[in-house]
C-alpha cells in the first residue's frame, strides 16, 4: 500500500496534475457557492473539458470539484441563508442565525474547519475500507454483481428525495432507457429506431441533459427571484482552536457522514441531517440548536463532507455509485477508458491511489481558499441567474458535442434536458434516473451471465450466500416504507 501511495504521490505532485487540482477546486468553489448549481452539475459540465487530459489529471480534477463544491456549499448557507448544495441546507439552521448575530466569521471558520476535519477523517476511512472492499469483491462473480446492483437500486429507490413510488418510477425509466441499443450478451438490436441509437443512449449527453440542462430551465423560470444580499459578512477568523471544543462532534459526525455516504442513494443531505439530529440529542446545549448553536454547524458540515469519501468507497471498489455525483464520476472514468470496481485496484492501482493523494493534497488548498476567500465566493451569488443560465446552456451543448463530435449528442442532451425538467416538475428527480443508467447494464449483463453459468436455474443463481444475503437485504429495504416512516428526504 505504501508503495502505491508513493507512486501515486509522484504522479500527482506534478505541475500538470496540481494545476488540474487547483482548477478543479476553483470550479468546485464556484459551483458550490452558486445556489442551483450542484456538484453533479459542475462535474457533468466539466467532463467534456477532460477529454484531452490524461486519466490522472482528469480524475483528480473531477474529484476536487466534487470535494470543493461540498466545502463551499456552506458559505452561502451561512451568509445569505441560501445553501449552495442540498447537503448544506442543515448548515443554514444555525449558520444564518449566527450570521444575523454578527458572528459570521466564527460560523464560517467552524464550517470550513469542520469540513476539512470531516474530509480528512473520512479520507482515512476511505483508504482502508475501499481496499478491503475491493479485495473482497475480487472473488465476486456475476451473481454477486447482479445482487449488488439490486441492493444499490433498491436503496436508491427508498432513500432518494421525495416520494418513494416516484423514485422507483424514475429508476425504472432509467432502466428502460438503458435497454436501447445492442443487447450486452447476444448482440441483438433492441429499440434501435434510429441508426445513431445502435450503441444505446449516450451516457454523458443524457447526464448533461438530465442534471445541467434541466437546471437551466429552472433558472430561466426563476430568473426574477432574488437572493438576499450579504448583510453582516465578516471574514472567517483563522484560528484552529475554535474547533477544539467540538472535537467529539467532529469525529462522530465524520463517522456518521462516511457510513451514510457509503449507502447508495443516501447522500450528503441525509448524512448532515442525521448527524445534526444525533448531535442535537447528545449535546448539552441541544435545545439551542436551530437558533445559532455552533455545534450544529460543525455536525452538519463534518458529516456533509465525510459523505463525499463515503460515496467514493463503493464506487472505486465495487463500481456502484454512492451518490449522483459519484455516478457522474463513473462517466468521467469511463471516458478515460477506466472501469471502476475491484479490478481497478488490481490493474490500475495508480488511479484510486491518485484520487486518495489528490484528495489529501487538495485539503490544504481548499481550507486556504475557504478561509481567506469566503467573502469573495459569496459574491458569486450576485451573478445574475440569466447570465449563468445562458452560459451553462451553451456549455451543455458544446460539451455534449465534444463527447463524439456529432450533433446527435446535442440532440440527446436537449431531449433529456426537456424530459428531466418535466419529470422534476412531477417530483421525479434526475438522480435515480442517472444511477439507473449506470447500474442498468451491470444488472442485466450480470444476471444473464449468472443464468448462463447456472444452466438457466435462477435458484442456483440466488443460492450463493452473498447473493442470497444481498437479495434478502434488498427485499427488506424495499419493504421498509411499508413498516415505518421513510428516512429523512433530501
Amino acid at each position, binding site marked *: 500500500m505504501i508503495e502505491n501511495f508513493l507512486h501515486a504521490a509522484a504522479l500527482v505532485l506534478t505541475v500538470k496534475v496540481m494545476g488540474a487540482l487547483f482548477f478543479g477546486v476553483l470550479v468546485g468553489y464556484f459551483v458550490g457557492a452558486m445556489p442551483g448549481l450542484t456538484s453533479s452539475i459542475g462535474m457533468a459540465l466539466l467532463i467534456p473539458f477532460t477529454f484531452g487530459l490524461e486519466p490522472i489529471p482528469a480524475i483528480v480534477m473531477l474529484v476536487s470539484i466534487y470535494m470543493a463544491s461540498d466545502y463551499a456549499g456552506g458559505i452561502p448557507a451561512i451568509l445569505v441563508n441560501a445553501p449552495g448544495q442540498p447537503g448544506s441546507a442543515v448548515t443554514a439552521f444555525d449558520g444564518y442565525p449566527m450570521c444575523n448575530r454578527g458572528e459570521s466569521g466564527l460560523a464560517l471558520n467552524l464550517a470550513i474547519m469542520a469540513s476539512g476535519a470531516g474530509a480528512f477523517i473520512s479520507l482515512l476511512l476511505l483508504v482502508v475500507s475501499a481496499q478491503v472492499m475491493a479485495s473482497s469483491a475480487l472473488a465476486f462473480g456475476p451473481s454477486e454483481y447482479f445482487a449488488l446492483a439490486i441492493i444499490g437500486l433498491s436503496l436508491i429507490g427508498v432513500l432518494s428525495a421525495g416520494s418513494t413510488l416516484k423514485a422507483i*418510477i424514475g429508476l425504472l425509466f432509467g432502466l428502460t432507457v438503458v*435497454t436501447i441499443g445492442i443487447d450486452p450478451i447476444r448482440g*441483438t438490436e*433492441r429499440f434501435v429506431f434510429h441508426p445513431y441509437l445502435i450503441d444505446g443512449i449516450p451516457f454523458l449527453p443524457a447526464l448533461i441533459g438530465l442534471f445541467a440542462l434541466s437546471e437551466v430551465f429552472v433558472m430561466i423560470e426563476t430568473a426574477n427571484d432574488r437572493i438576499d444580499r450579504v448583510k453582516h459578512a465578516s471574514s472567517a477568523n483563522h484560528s484552529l482552536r475554535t474547533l477544539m471544543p467540538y472535537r467529539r462532534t467532529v469525529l462522530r459526525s465524520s463517522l456518521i457522514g462516511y457510513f451514510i455516504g457509503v449507502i447508495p442513494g443516501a447522500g450528503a443531505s441525509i448524512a448532515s441531517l442525521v448527524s445534526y439530529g444525533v448531535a442535537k440529542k447528545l449535546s448539552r446545549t441541544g435545545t439551542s440548536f436551530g437558533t445559532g448553536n455552533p455545534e450544529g454547524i460543525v455536525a452538519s458540515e463534518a458529516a456533509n463532507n465525510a459523505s463525499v469519501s463515503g460515496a467514493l468507497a463503493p464506487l472505486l471498489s465495487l463500481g456502484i455509485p454512492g451518490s449522483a455525483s459519484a455516478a457522474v464520476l463513473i462517466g468521467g472514468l469511463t471516458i478515460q477508458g477506466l472501469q471502476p470496481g475491484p479490478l481497478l485496484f488490481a490493474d490500475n492501482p495508480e488511479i484510486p491511489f491518485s484520487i486518495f493523494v489528490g484528495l489529501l493534497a487538495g485539503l490544504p488548498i481548499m481550507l486556504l481558499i475557504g478561509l481567506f476567500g469566503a467573502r469573495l465566493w459569496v459574491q458569486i451569488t450576485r451573478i445574475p441567474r440569466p447570465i449563468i443560465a445562458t452560459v451553462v446552456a451553451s456549455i451543455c451543448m458544446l460539451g455534449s458535442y465534444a463527447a463524439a463530435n456529432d*450533433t446527435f449528442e446535442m440532440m440527446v442532451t436537449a431531449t433529456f434536458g426537456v424530459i428531466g425538467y418535466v419529470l422534476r416538475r412531477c417530483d421525479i428527480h434526475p438522480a435515480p434516473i442517472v444511477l439507473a443508467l449506470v447500474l442498468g447494464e451491470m444488472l442485466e449483463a450480470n444476471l444473464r451471465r449468472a443464468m448462463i453459468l447456472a444452466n438457466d436455474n435462477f435458484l442456483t443463481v440466488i443460492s450463493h450466500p452473498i447473493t442470497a444475503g444481498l437479495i434478502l437485504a434488498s427485499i427488506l429495504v424495499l419493504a421498509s416504507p411499508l413498516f415505518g416512516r421513510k428516512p429523512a428526504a433530501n
Partner: protein
Amino acid sequence: MNSQDITLTRHIKHKQQVENLARTEKSLRLSGRIVDIIVCLALLTMGIWFVVEALHMPSGREALGPGTFPIIVGGALAFFSLLQLGLSISARRQWAAVEVQRPLWLMISMAMILAFPAAVERLGYYPVAVIWVPVFGWIAGIRSPVGLIAATLIVLALGKFVFEMLLSTPLP
C-alpha cells in the same frame, strides 16, 4: 441636469422597465393532480411500448433472451406508473398547484434548445451562436446589452479557445 444625473436617471428608468417586465410576466398554475396524470400516462405508454416491442424480439435457447429484461423493466414501469396514476386520481387530499413561472419564455427556450443542434448542423456553430446566444440570453432574462454581449463573447471564446484550441475539438 449634469451628465451624471442623466446617467443615473437612465439607469433608474432601465431598472424600472426591467422590474415592470418582471411584474407583468404571468405564471401558469397547473393542478398537481393533472401534471401527475399526464406524466404517468406518458410513462405508462412508454412502458407498454417497450413490452410490446420486446415481445417481438427473437428468443434464444437461454431462459433470459434479449427481450426479457426490457419486458421486466418496461412492465414494471407500466405497473408503477399505473399505480401512481390510480393514486393520483383517487387521492382526496388537497393537491399543491404546480406553478410554472415565465411559461412563455420557458417554452421558447426549450424550443430554441431543441432547434440548436439542427441549426448548428446546417449553418455551423459560430454563425448560429452569434444569433442564438443573445436571443437565448434575452429569453433567459438578461435585459442589459452589456450582459448580452458579455454572454455571447464568453460562449464564443469558450468554443474557440477551450474546445477548438485546447481540446482540439473541431466545431461544425
